Each structure stands twice: as structure tokens, then as C-alpha cells.
């Protein structure tokens, strides 16, 4: 891929989104922590409870905290109505604010309890009211300590905000997750550099404010504060400035095929004059929910995934019946529109190295059930949680010695290195052919069909231009074309960017 400088320059949008998300989360954290700290400084019980709660939050992994807000907000819709966003900015903001709470709260409470009692008594003695004492004495004396807490919170928040990519909020995590997916380390490095750079600059500026407050040099304090505000304003301008509000948002789950197809769709729309935006790295359930609620406009999904995970079905009809039922179900439950099949299938299947399969005479999944008990099965983190896996396991009575989770990329390496003997793989994956893998037959038809289909959000489906622009894609991509495109971004050398891969794919299918 192109050199790191150009990638960094292209991250302006992500950086702006990252800055705004982090700034909003820290601001909210401050707004909650400071009143709590004042209350806590007057009541030891409150201090114990709030600090305990904040510490507890801190023990929850940031990724889990972000994910938890999806069901929480979903249930809150009962109170606030269907308009409440469950993905993107709001859940990311709430989770990160909770995370920012602890350092600010702890420093503020410590600062308050460490105030010289003689000075506080004098403040009362000269006749200060509660608010005068807070404003004229307690706040200025605590300010440097509180600022130190805010500084810690800011660095944490900027780091953790990269994870908000997974819940559909653009951030500097986008290049990191995209690069991790395709072993494109330059992309990962660019994302890391940008977020680390942002954290360092923020730390330096807030450190200057802290120093200014401690040494009571107003110039220093306000100068650094001004620089912070200018940064936030610039981010605001980038985000909302150019009047690009009417962007079409295309979602992509966290694997290469999705990234490429999103670009393919995006490029077609751009030639039709649409402005587009990508929301990459979404979890499977999150992505479907996002298109159904209009948080994103377009998504490529897979029939079997919707069938088992969203509709909760365990029967397995033929592919046309399944598609028709899905289209009807989507239209009825959310108004989401199924535009059509792309033409290839990306099924789940159990794959082994050809040699191993040949040598051990593993032809179908039944052979695995009979003779594979000593083997290790690998899968992506989602795989073992999905109902399809349960269905396959039950249908064949599968038992393995061990079960291991890998990110999709590392899964193939694990198979090569022998850390896994069989993996839950995707049939359209370019590495199937490249790594000389075979899929085991599924005579019981325990895995459903996974035809790739284009989903349009209720709003997008009413846009005639989008429908016209995307209709040529229906039925246009066979599995060989998709595998080639996937391999072109997944392979070790000579990697293409997602944009390039999408352009090549378009050429190959004659669009």
C-alpha cells in the first residue's frame, strides 16, 4: 500500500471525529465528576460510593463497556422512544465518559480533602458563603490537581476512543481495525501514530494549563486553553463545515470482503454524484441493527446470518425461499429493503489443509465427528457464539479436544502453524485457494445459505438514484471474482488498498 505519509494525510476526517468524541466524553466526565467531588468532599459515605463505582467501571474492559451500551440504549428506547440512537456517537460518548470519570473524580476528591483546614476555616471566618468559598478558595486551590486528573482522563479517553470503531463511531480506530483485519501494518501504524500523537499533544497542552494554574500564570493557562479550543473548533469545522451533511453512509463489518464491497458501492454512488462515508469494522449484529434503524444507509449482509441470528430460524429451506422470506421479514419489521443478491455466497464452512484432509481421509463433517476428537478447532470470536455453530455441532455430534478464538486473519496462520487443525472459514475468502485449503462437505445441510445481499435502510430505499446506481451489482459478482479481490488485500505482499481492490473488481465484472 502507499506510504504512511499519504495515509496519515487522509485521516483528517477520522481525526476530527476522534477529537470531537474524546472532547465531548471528557467534558461530560468533568460535568459529572466535579459536582460529585464537591458532594463527596462533604460526605465520606458519598466519597466511598462514588469512588467505588468509578473504580468498578474502570475494571470493565473498554471494549466490553462500549458494547454494553448497545443493549442498554436499546432497552432505554422504551422510555425515550425509537429515535434514541443505539450505535455510533451516543453509546461511544457515554462509555468513554464513564471511563473518564475515575481519574477526574479521584483527583478532585483528593484535592478537596487535602485542602489546608486552617485556610478553609479562615474562608468561613471572613464570611464566605458556600459558593464564594467554592469559587474563591476551594476551586483555585484544587484546580491544578483536578487538571492533572483531567489530563490522565484525556490520555485514557483518546486511547480508548479507537475502540469506538466497533460500535459504528468513526475514529482513529478505523485504520487500526482495517489494518489488523488485512495484516496491513502500515495502516495499523498510521492509526496508532495519529492517536498517540493526538494524545501527546493533548497531554502537553493540558500539562501547560496545569502548570499555569499551579504557578498562577494566567497567560500560560489561557494560551494553552485557547489552543485546545482551537483544536476542537477545527475538528467541528471539518465535521460539520463543508455542508456535507447529506452523505450516504455505507457500513462494513470487520473483514476484508466487507471493506471492499463497501468501497465498490461507494465508488458507484460517487460517480452518480453522491457524497459517501464509510462506517467500517462493525460487529455483525451491530451492523444489521444499524441499517435497520437508518444509522447507516447501505450494508452487504448474508442470508444465513440474518436467517439464524436476526430471525432466529433453525430450519433450512432452499435459497430462493429463504431470500423471499428474509425480504418479507425485513420489510415488515423495519422497512429495510433487500435490493438483491450480489451473486456469490460467503458461507461458513469447516476448512482444513488439503494434505491433512487427504491424508486423514476427512471428506465431510461426519468424518470429523467420527475421528476428529483429538483435534483443535479454531474460529473467529463470533463463530462459536453463532447459532449456526450450535446447529452444526448438534447435527453431527462434533466434539473437539480444544476450541480457540482467533481474529480472522490469524486463523489462517494458525491452521498453517498447526495451532488449529480445522477452522470455521468463509467460502469466499481468497486465502482458501491461496493456502490450498478444502472445505468439508456438509451432507446434513446444517449450515444455511449465505448469499451476499445488499440491504438498504428504509430511507435509502426511497432514493431512486441509489437503487438505480446499485442495481447493476445484483448478480454481477461470482465467487471467483470475490476471492480474487479478497486475496488482493489479504496477501502478504503487494497488498492493494480497499479502494484499489474495489476498482479492480468493478473492472473485472465489467462495470
Amino acid at each position, binding site marked *: 500500500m502507499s506510504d504512511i505519509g499519504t495515509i496519515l494525510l487522509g485521516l483528517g476526517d477520522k481525526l476530527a471525529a476522534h477529537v470531537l468524541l474524546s472532547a465531548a466524553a471528557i467534558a461530560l466526565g468533568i460535568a459529572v465528576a466535579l459536582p460529585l467531588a464537591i458532594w463527596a468532599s462533604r460526605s465520606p459515605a458519598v466519597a466511598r460510593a462514588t469512588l467505588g463505582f468509578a473504580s468498578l467501571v474502570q475494571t470493565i474492559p473498554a471494549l466490553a463497556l462500549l458494547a454494553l451500551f448497545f443493549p442498554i440504549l436499546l432497552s432505554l428506547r422504551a422510555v425515550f422512544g425509537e429515535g434514541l440512537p443505539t450505535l455510533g456517537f451516543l453509546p461511544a460518548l457515554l462509555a468513554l465518559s464513564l471511563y473518564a470519570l475515575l481519574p477526574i473524580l479521584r483527583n478532585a476528591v483528593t484535592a478537596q480533602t487535602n485542602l*489546608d483546614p*486552617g*485556610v478553609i*476555616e*479562615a*474562608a*468561613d*471566618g*471572613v*464570611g*464566605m*458563603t458556600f459558593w*464564594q468559598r467554592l469559587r*474563591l*478558595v476551594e476551586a*483555585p*486551590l484544587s484546580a491544578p490537581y483536578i487538571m492533572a486528573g483531567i489530563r490522565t482522563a484525556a490520555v485514557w479517553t483518546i486511547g480508548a476512543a479507537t475502540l469506538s470503531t466497533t460500535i459504528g463511531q468513526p475514529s482513529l480506530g478505523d485504520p487500526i481495525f482495517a489494518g489488523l483485519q488485512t495484516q496491513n501494518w502500515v495502516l495499523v501504524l498510521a492509526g496508532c501514530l495519529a492517536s498517540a500523537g493526538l494524545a501527546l499533544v493533548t497531554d502537553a497542552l493540558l500539562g501547560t494549563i496545569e502548570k499555569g494554574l499551579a504557578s*498562577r500564570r494566567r497567560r500560560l493557562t489561557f494560551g494553552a486553553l485557547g489552543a485546545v479550543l482551537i483544536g476542537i473548533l477545527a475538528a467541528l469545522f471539518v465535521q460539520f463545515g463543508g455542508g456535507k451533511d447529506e452523505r450516504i453512509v455505507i457500513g462494513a463489518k470487520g473483514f476484508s470482503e466487507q471493506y471492499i464491497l463497501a468501497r465498490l458501492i461507494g465508488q458507484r454512488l460517487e460517480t452518480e454524484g453522491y457524497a459517501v462515508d464509510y462506517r467500517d469494522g462493525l460487529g455483525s449484529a451491530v451492523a444489521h441493527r444499524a441499517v435497520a434503524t437508518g444509522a447507516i444507509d447501505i450494508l452487504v449482509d448474508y442470508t444465513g446470518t440474518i436467517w439464524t441470528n436476526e430471525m432466529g430460524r433453525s430450519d433450512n429451506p432452499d435459497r430462493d425461499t429463504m431470500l423471499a422470506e428474509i425480504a418479507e421479514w425485513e420489510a415488515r419489521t423495519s422497512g429495510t429493503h433487500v435490493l438483491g443478491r450480489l451473486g456469490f455466497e460467503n458461507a461458513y464452512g469447516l476448512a482444513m489443509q488439503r494434505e491433512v484432509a487427504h491424508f486423514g481421509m476427512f471428506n465431510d463433517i461426519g468424518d470429523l465427528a467420527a475421528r476428529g476428537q483429538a483435534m483443535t478447532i479454531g474460529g473467529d470470536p463470533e463463530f462459536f457464539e453463532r447459532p449456526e455453530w450450535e446447529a452444526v455441532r448438534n447435527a453431527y455430534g462434533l466434539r473437539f479436544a480444544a476450541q480457540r478464538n482467533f481474529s480472522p486473519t490469524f486463523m489462517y496462520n494458525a491452521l498453517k502453524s498447526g495451532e488449529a487443525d480445522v477452522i470455521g472459514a468463509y467460502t469466499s475468502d481468497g486465502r482458501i485457494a491461496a493456502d490450498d485449503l478444502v472445505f468439508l462437505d456438509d451432507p446434513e445441510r446444517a449450515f444455511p445459505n449465505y448469499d451476499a445481499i445488499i440491504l438498504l435502510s428504509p430511507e435509502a430505499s426511497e432514493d431512486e438514484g441509489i437503487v438505480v446506481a446499485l442495481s447493476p451489482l445484483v448478480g454481477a459478482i461470482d465467487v471467483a471474482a470475490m476471492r480474487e479481490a479478497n486475496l488482493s488485500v489479504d496477501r502478504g505482499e503487494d497488498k492493494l488498498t480497499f479502494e484499489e481492490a474495489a476498482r479492480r473488481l468493478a473492472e473485472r465484472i465489467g462495470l
Partner: protein
Amino acid sequence: MTEAPGPLLELCDLRKSYETTDAVSGVSLAIARGEFVALVGASGSGKSTLLKTVNRLVEPTSGTVRFDGEPIANLPLAALRHRIGYVFQSIGLFPHMTVSENIAIGPRLVGEKLAARRVEELLELVDLDPAMGARMPDELSGGQRQRIGVARALANEPQVLLMDEPFGALDPVTRDALGNRVRALHEKLGLTSVMVTHDMAEALLLADRVLVMEDGEIVADEVPRALLGGAGGAIAQGLVAVPRAQANRLAELAR
């Protein structure tokens, strides 16, 4: 009511108990307008606690304090404290404010700006260089800080001046000069003053009336002349004996 001849400060059966100690155990006392009262007693006898009940830095366990005939519990807290200048034993200057800002804090709280000229006056009053106004408290000596504490207490032009060991950290010469100056100021401004001190000689020389405190009680309440004449009981006489013996020895040395 203001013209009533009654005492300005009146303490009725005042008690303050902590878990383990009774800091003040039943003090009744009246202080007339214009009096200069010294409060003397051993460390831990309850002097500071008693003084703080007057501007409600300490809420008594029982008993009442009247200011100008009105129970202080009925007065708005900030207003009460604006009428009482208080010099803290721990000084309590605001470390993030300049000396001038510290002195001007009382007027500032009620929305008035103390003129620079007034700040200089107050500094001169406590025998400090007016140029010191621009300094921060941590750039001053202990004794200088105590004097700023006195200046701050006077800035509001209070009716009552409560001083808790205001001269503890001063050298004897400055201490003597400042004691006299405060006494003169007391006359000039028509103050009613209470000064806590360890030093019986200082109390005898400055005050109109000396209270002796022991274990939370007032054990003697006499004018200086009476104390020197042997009144006030054993504890008070024990305290008076120290400076008297010193004076006698000095007189002998000089002979």
C-alpha cells in the same frame, strides 16, 4: 435596641462537648461595648473554642450567644461574620491570593472594592511596608503573616475584633509595639475586642479586663489592678506570679 445599654456580647451557659472532652463547660459572660478583654489560660483550656462560638465557627452543644441582644443563631451567618473581625491562631491566609487581595477579601465578598489607599493604610497600621501588598503569603515571614491576618480582620471595619494569639510569632519588640498599636486602634475605631494570649504580662498591660480559663471554665474575671492585688484565686495568681517574679528579678539586677 441599638441604644440599649446592655452588653454587646453575651454568652449564656455555653457548652461545647466533643466525644472525649468538654472543650467549654458552662461559660456565662457579658462583654460591654468598647471593652478590651484578654482571655488567658493554659494550652487546651478551651480559649479558641470559646472564641469561635462567637462567630459560629463552632456551634455550641448548648447555651446561647447574643450579639447586640440578638441570639446569633437568628442572624444570617455571612452578615454576622462581616461584623466580626477574626484573627486566626493558624493565621489562614489564602495562599493563592496576594497580600492585598487577602486584606481586601472581606469587602470583596459583599461586592465592594477596597481602595488601594485603604490597603496601604491597613498595612501601615500593622507596621508593614505598603509595597508588600503585591507579595504572595509564602514570601513572608511568620510574623509578617500574622500582621496581615490582623489587617485582614480590620478591613471590614468590624464592630468586634476577636484575636486568637495574634502576636504568637512576633519578636518581643514588634510584639510590644503592635500590642500598643492594636490597643490604640481599639480606642480610635471604637471596637469591642477579645484577645487570646498565653502571656499574662501582655494581658495585664493591654486589657481592661482579664479572663482566666481552665478546663473549659472561666475561673477568674478581674481588672488588671485587682489581679495584681491578689484577687482571682489560685490559678489566676499562679499566672500572675510569673511576670511579677520576672519583674522583681529584673529590678534587682538593675539595682
